[in-house]
C-alpha cells in the first residue's frame, strides 16, 4: 500500500507536468492541475494509512 501511495504521488505530479504542454486553454489546464493534485492527495492518504498500519503491527 505504501508503494502504491508513493506511485500515486508521482503519478499525480506527472499529470500536472503533462497537462502544461498538452493543454492550451487555461480552464482545462486548471482542471487537470487540480486533478493531478487530487491524485497526489489520494497517494498521500495511502502512504499515511500504510504507516498507521505498520505502527499498529509493531506496537
Amino acid at each position, binding site marked *: 500500500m505504501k508503494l502504491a501511495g*508513493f506511485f500515486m*504521488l*508521482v*503519478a*499525480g*505530479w*506527472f499529470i*500536472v507536468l503533462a497537462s*502544461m*504542454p498538452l493543454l492550451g486553454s*487555461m480552464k482545462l*489546464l*486548471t482542471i487537470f*492541475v*487540480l486533478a*493531478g*493534485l487530487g491524485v*497526489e492527495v489520494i*497517494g*498521500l492518504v495511502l*502512504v*499515511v494509512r500504510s*504507516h*498507521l498500519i505498520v*505502527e*499498529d503491527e*509493531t*506496537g
Partner: protein
Amino acid sequence: MTNLPTPTLSEGASVVCVVCILLVPLAAGGLALMNAGLGRSRGAAHTMIASLCILSVAVITYFVCGFAVQGFAEGPSHVLNEGGKQWDWIGAGPFFFRKFELDGSRESLVAVFSMLCAGLAALIPLGAAAERWRLRAMCASTALLAGFTFPLFAHWVRFGGWLEQVGSNYGLGHGLIDVGGSGWIQAAGGLTALSIVWILGPRRGKYSSTKMPNAIPAHNAVFVVFGAMLCWLGWLGLNSAGAILFGGALPGQTLLEIVNTTLAAASAGLAALVVTGLRFGRPDASLTCNGWIGGLVASSAGCLFIKPAEAVVVGAIAGVLVTYAVEWLEFGLKVDDPGGSISAHAVGGIWGLLAVGLFARLPTLSGSNSGQFVAQLVGIATLLGFVLPITYGLNRLLNWFVPYRVSLEGERQGMDLHELGADAYPEFVVHTEEFIQR
C-alpha cells in the same frame, strides 16, 4: 508572461543585501534553540551539537556539489526541449565554486545566500526527529539534502529552472513565485522531516498501548520563546535578501518586506495563542511559538507582493493551520514531531505558496490572478509529487547503510549521555557523596 525582473544590483542594494544575508544565521540559531527547548533535557546538548554538525555538513556539501546542481540564473544548465519550449531541469554550475568569483555580483550573493539557506533547510528535520536520530545518520541525511534534493528543487524554483519558466512557457503568471523560500527552503525541509519521521517512527513511550499519545513536555520554554524571537530577526534577513535577489526589490522596498514579515508572524502567533487558549483553557507556549514560526514561513513566498493587511490575514491563517496540524499529526496520523517542524515548515510553507496565488499583486500582471494561482499549484504538486517521494526513497535507502534510529538502550539513557557521554545540565544530577556528613 515573463519571469520577475532581476535588474543588476546597485552598490547600495548589494550592501543592504549583504547585511540581510548576515542576519540569516540567526534563523538557524533560533531553530536550534527551539528544537533543543522543545525536547527533553536529556537530549538538549545532543540537539545543539547536532544543529552545529548539520549546518557544517550542509554548507560543505553545498560548496562541494550543491551549487553545481543548483546553478544560477542565466548560468549553464541542462535543458530539455519539449514542443519548442525549454524545460530547464538541472543546473551545471561549478563544483567547489571553481572559477566562480565571489566579488559582490548578484550571482555571488545568490551563492552565499543559498549556502546559508541549505543549512537552514537541513536544520528543519532535526526538530521532528530529535531524541531518536543518530548523529552520524543526521550528517549523512544532511549531505543528501544539501548536495542534491535542496539544490535541485531550488534550481527549479529560483535559478532559471522549469518551475520559474512555466510563466514564460505556458502563460502561468510569472512562474512559481517564492522569493523568500516558503517552498524551496521551508516546505522542502518540512517534507524531508516527514519522510525521516516516517522512517524513524515515534519516540518510545510517546504512544500508549491504546495508541493515545502521551504528553512529553518541552524542557525549556524560555529557549523556545527566545529561539522564536531570533528566528524573527533571521527571517527579516531571509525575506529581504530573497526579495532583493529574486524579486528585483530596491533597498527601500525591504521596508515593506520587514512590515509584512513582522505582521504575518505577529498575527500567526496571536492566532495560535487564541486557538490554544480557547481549546485548552490556557494558551500554550510551544504551540504559540510554532504558530509564530508558521507565520514567518508563510510570509516568505510573497511578502514583497502583498499589502500589510493581507500579511495579517496570511499570518493568522498560518497560525490556525499550524496549531491544528500539530494536533492532527500527533493524534490522527501518529506522527511524533516534538519540534512541530512538519506543521510549521511544511504546512506553513505550502500555505505561503498558495497565499501568493490568492493575494499577490505582481508587476505587469493585470486582471485575473488565475494563471499565477495555477503556477503556485504546480509548485505545490511538485513538492508533494517529487520532493516527498524522492526524499523518502533516498533516506530509506540511506537507512540501510547508516541506521537512523538509536538503540533502545540509547533512547532510555538519553541522547546526551549515549552519544556525547555528558549531560547538558550536569548539575541536575544529584551526586549522593556531596550530601554525606564528613
